[in-house]
């Protein structure tokens, strides 16, 4: 792969939150690069600053120490070529399902309203919610809401999909369904996906590469390639084995670091 294939490049990124007279270092010298079309998971215990890192990639938070280069140029505004999914679906209850998906398409130039609706309903069918276009948000289950959020993020055809623990509030069964959907969609479209999660199995099932972060302040413990064939399932023995290995990395290396901090 050549240099031009690098989609996201973070170098020596640190982040300190100051509150009053004390300050908390959440990220410590993070460097990584992600290729175009790659599916990468950032795995870490809660509070290790992984969501902060994702917010910085999305330019929802400023990056003051180190720099993050997306698409070979430095931006400071959230843009539509990087769509984001949140832990909560963040759908707008004043619109119905279809209008929620159309929302992200409103700023795409050269489309008529009818075309926007056609695209939106195409993506709703893709996530299996073709029959729910006219439903209101409060009528959907948690899993359905995240599907709508996925459709909304995919509809503007972004180059990148940033996922901030989008499955953590869902039950295990719903998660399995969504893992299948996400793998299917990634296989179809090969978007660059950056997933933040604290669920080891989720990271192993979905990603090609897992970046393991330590306890706060988050440091990269390991950059772990997952060379299993797609589609994967949480029940695969090989997935379990790798998940065990990663958990070990998190515990042993993480705990060592933690001990040395004290």
């Amino acid at each position, binding site marked *: 792969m050549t240099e031009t294939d690098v989609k996201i490049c973070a170098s020596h990124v640190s982040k300190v939150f100051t509150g009053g007279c004390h300050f908390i270092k959440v990220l410590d010298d993070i460097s990584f690069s992600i290729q175009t079309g790659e599916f990468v998971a950032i795995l870490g215990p809660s509070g290790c600053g992984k969501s902060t890192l994702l917010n910085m990639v*999305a330019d*929802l938070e400023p990056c003051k120490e180190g720099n993050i280069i997306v698409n070979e140029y430095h931006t400071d505004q*959230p*843009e*539509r070529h*990087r*769509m*984001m999914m*949140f832990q*909560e679906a*963040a759908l*707008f*209850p*004043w619109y119905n399902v279809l209008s929620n998906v159309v*929302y*992200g398409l*409103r*700023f795409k130039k050269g489309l008529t309203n009818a075309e926007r609706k056609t695209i939106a309903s195409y993506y709703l069918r893709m996530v299996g919610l073709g029959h729910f276009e006219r439903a*209101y*948000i*409060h*009528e959907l289950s948690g899993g359905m809401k995240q599907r709508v959020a996925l459709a*909304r993020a995919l509809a*503007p055809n972004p180059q990148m999909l940033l996922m901030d623990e989008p499955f953590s509030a869902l039950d295990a069964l719903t998660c399995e369904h969504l893992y299948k959907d996400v793998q299917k969609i990634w296989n179809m479209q090969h978007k660059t996906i950056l997933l933040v999660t604290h669920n080891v199995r989720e990271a192993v099932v979905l990603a090609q590469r897992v970046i393991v972060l330590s306890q706060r302040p988050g440091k990269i413990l390991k950059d772990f390639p997952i060379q299993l064939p797609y589609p994967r399932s949480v029940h695969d023995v090989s997935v379990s084995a790798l998940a065990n290995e990663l958990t070990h990395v998190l515990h042993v290396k993480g705990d060592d670091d933690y001990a040395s901090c004290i």
Partner: protein
Amino acid sequence: MKYRLLCLDLNVVKSLLKKIAYLFAVLCIWQFLYVLGGCSDLIFPTPIQVVSFLWHACADGTLMSATWITIKRLILGYSVSVLIGIPMGILCSRFYILNAFVGKLVLGLQTLPSICWVPLTLLWFGQTDRAILFVVTMGSLWSLIASTESSVRQIPSLYIKAAHTMGSRGVDLWLTVIFPAALPSIITGMKQSWAFAWRSLMSAEIYVSTIGGLGIGQLLHYGREMQAMDQVMGIIFVIIAIGLIAEKVLFANVERILHKRWGFIKSSN
């Protein structure tokens, strides 16, 4: 299907009958208390006297014209409040400096009972309709500014974050996300402010007798001056009825729509 329609009709009739029976029972108790207490008619009128007053006031048109004048004042005063209060509340939530100045003023003026504006308004405007409108507006405006400001400030930041990533900015963000997200609590604030406007209007009408025509509150006041207890009681019932009907007509439908879309009605806090 036919059977179900019949069922529905029966239910409606049943509930109507229940209401009539309830009303009748209340009137009976009232009459009984009158007989029991042995008070003078000047202190405690019978239900028949009150009903006959209402009947005569309806027949000669005084009640209708007073109701119309009162409702006109209420709508005018409240509209001024809404037209100033909601934009002002939104501006306060947007600009910190404005909120620092206006916010404190609003908090202070909100605690002032609207009746306290009457002496000032009489000196400024005299015994005119404008004096009454001023009291109504002062009574409802401040709470509306405060509630609109807090409604907008309290919307989940996640909505704004999500809209940001989808490219929405500035005016578009306000129209498509911030305002709709705040709408349920803004409506709750408007409802509260409407109640304040209604109370302010009644105090103003009782204290300010104007050349602009007799309102319901003024009828109540003259009822006292003429020692006509049947008039006082009758008008009190009319005031209750107007309050109930206005709230139903104005807010019940809006709240139903909100409930259907948002899936809940934000409770007032």
